[in-house]
């Protein structure tokens, strides 16, 4: 290798480092949610998602033997008032900080922990993090002593996704709830019909599809006719009407929601899919017409003249020429509108509260104290799969639509 070439390669290293770090930086937040959606509730609460591949704390006899066994006994049954083989007792302390709090309290006027070294460690407020790490295996051992059902499952699991799909929000999992075939709390039927639970994400997924597909097709249909008129027909007000359309493109959604909601309640269209289709159609039209008109107007004039000489009228020119040629533009628009409607929250909350879509259902799951990250991450990812796939598969068209709207026009 020549020195010049080597120098060039070395000189480019900073560039690669910057670009790759950017890419990683952009990926990590999403990756965290993806990984978390496959971890059990307890695992999510006790360790960060980046620990997923590290070794989980092993149930250890050693810590238990030095700190606890002298009073509680090796099998945990020595003290009748604190039977550590009883899942009900141990169940109170599944989280290590709860366990620590318990150990810091006095028992009958004496420190809870007898072992001198452990006693000092437990009471030292400045070493909390260290002691929590040491207590993790003790907790695991207690869980094992009490029958194992409380042991933290550090393996990957699909149960969050199942729970999210059927709308299970309890403290175990849907699979455990339905282990016997009959729902313990009576909230579920434990068959496929649970997928239609109004609180579940699978129902919301269905609602999102029902909202989005027609809302993506209808505006294109109406826009194609109007765009043809703007491009190849002559009428009064053609120019200023189109200029007005350019302005209408950025009317904030917020301007129109309340009057439409009121109109719908008078017409009995509250929470109807038909109503929300029409709304999204109305709102998608200015951009759709604008983009299609620019595309159609850019087609060669000769094409239209020759088809006319062949005896065609506007109707045939529209269906035989304009529509087939604008397939790329239609694809761009379809993807644009699909992503826009699928990701919408505001319109869905106001016009379709009775049939919650994915975005709405996710906001219902948010817990400020972070108690259900396992469910929330699975639900969020469920809502992201479709737009991500659509985006990755049709990125070319999406970018083209973006450029046509924002730059050329």
């Amino acid at each position, binding site marked *: 290798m020549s020195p010049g070439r080597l120098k060039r390669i070395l000189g480019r290293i900073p560039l690669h480092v910057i670009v790759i770090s950017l890419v990683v930086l952009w990926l990590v937040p999403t990756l965290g949610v993806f990984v978390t959606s496959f971890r059990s509730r307890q695992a999510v609460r006790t360790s960060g998602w980046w620990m997923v591949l590290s070794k989980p704390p092993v149930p250890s006899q050693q810590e238990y033997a030095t700190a606890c066994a002298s009073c509680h006994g090796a099998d945990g049954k020595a003290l009748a008032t604190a039977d550590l083989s009883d899942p009900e007792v141990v169940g109170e302390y599944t989280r290590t900080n709860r366990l620590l709090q318990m150990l810091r309290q006095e028992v009958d006027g004496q420190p809870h922990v007898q072992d001198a070294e452990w006693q000092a460690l437990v009471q030292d407020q400045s070493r909390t993090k260290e002691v929590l790490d040491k207590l993790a295996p003790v907790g695991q051992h207690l869980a094992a002593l009490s029958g194992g059902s409380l042991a933290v499952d550090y393996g990957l699991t699909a149960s969050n996704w199942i729970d999210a799909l059927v709308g299970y929000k309890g403290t175990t999992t849907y699979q455990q709830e339905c282990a016997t075939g009959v729902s313990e709390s009576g909230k579920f039927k434990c068959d496929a019909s649970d997928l239609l639970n109004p609180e579940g994400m699978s129902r919301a997924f269905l609602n999102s599809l029902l909202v989005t597909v027609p809302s993506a097709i209808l505006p294109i249909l109406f826009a194609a006719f109007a765009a043809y008129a703007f*491009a190849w027909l002559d009428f009064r007000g053609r120019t200023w009407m189109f200029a007005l359309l350019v302005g209408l493109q950025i009317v*904030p959604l917020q301007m129109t929601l309340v009057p439409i909601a009121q109109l719908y309640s008078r017409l009995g269209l509250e929470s109807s899919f038909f109503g929300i289709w029409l709304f999204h159609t109305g709102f998608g039209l200015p951009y759709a017409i604008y983009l299609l008109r620019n595309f159609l107007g850019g087609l060669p004039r000769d094409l*239209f003249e020759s088809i006319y000489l062949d005896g065609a009228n506007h109707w045939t020119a529209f269906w035989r020429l304009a529509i087939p040629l604008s397939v790329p533009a239609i694809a761009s628009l379809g993807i644009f509108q699909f992503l826009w409607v699928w990701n919408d929250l505001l319109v869905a909350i106001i016009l379709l509260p009775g049939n919650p879509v994915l975005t709405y259902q996710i906001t219902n799951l948010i817990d400020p104290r972070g108690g259900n990250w396992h469910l929330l991450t699975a639900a*969020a990812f469920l809502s992201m799969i479709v737009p991500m796939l659509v*985006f990755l598969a049709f990125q070319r068209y999406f970018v083209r639509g973006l450029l046509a709207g924002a*730059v050329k026009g």
Partner: protein
Amino acid sequence: MVPKIMKQGALTPWLYLSAALLIMLLFIVYPTIRTVTLSLRDKAGAQPATVDCVAGEPCWGVLENYRYALTNPEMLQALRNNALWILLMVPGTVGAGLLFAVLTDRVRYERLAKTIIFLPMAISFVGAGVIWRFVYFLETGEGAQIGVLNAIIAGLGGQPVAWLTNSNWMVNNVSLWIVGTWLWAGFCMTILSAALKAVPTEILEASRVDGASEWQVFWRIMFPLILPTVTVVTTTMIINILKVFDIVFVMTNGLNGTEVIANRMFKFIVTNQGRSMAIAGLLIVLTIPIMIFNVRRFREQEEIR
């Protein structure tokens, strides 16, 4: 300009236009007008807004709801925040987009890198909100920090930070702007990258031959050439920010000094329609300059056509 490619009946254009025009009249024009009239009425829309005036206190008569929208402390906070989003977050995002466009242009894995940075555009603001709430999460109990940012800080021996509920409102806002940048930098990058690629290479080569440094080539030649695109991207971003709602609603719900106009409007939508509509009215007034700008730009381009 006038197409006249073939004979047409007097009614033909209107047949093609009617459905679209009717729907737009019903769903954009009518509600916008109605919103303005409702903004002049009371909570329930039953009486003129004047009835909300309290004797002995300032009153703007029928514009009483606008007095609220322009003088209430929480509204002022929202207006301040939207202004800060536009003044600080928009240039940051457009700048980041431009930087990414320039950088990715020089590596062989350009497509992959751009796809990944652009990907957040595909997901909902709600999904992005969940993703970033998790990044910013603060464990206030004694358990481990499971939010990546606070875990790093704790790992380095620092005190975990309340990124979204900080007593310093600027921290909360900056946290939101980072989310906004993560979402929109890819959008800016994609459009600016297309503009950069359209710059003729001969001009660039010529100036390099003349001894211009890469820095000079960028600022003296490329940047002026893509300036129109930078303007378009910036105005589009300003519109996005004026309307920004979902991110704030999901991440902070406007608490701790992060209120924005659209979230205020949403909060009143049921409890005080008059106010809600006045805030929406304010929003449209703020977008009008950009509408005019867009229409002008469109007309200029039509003349070039």
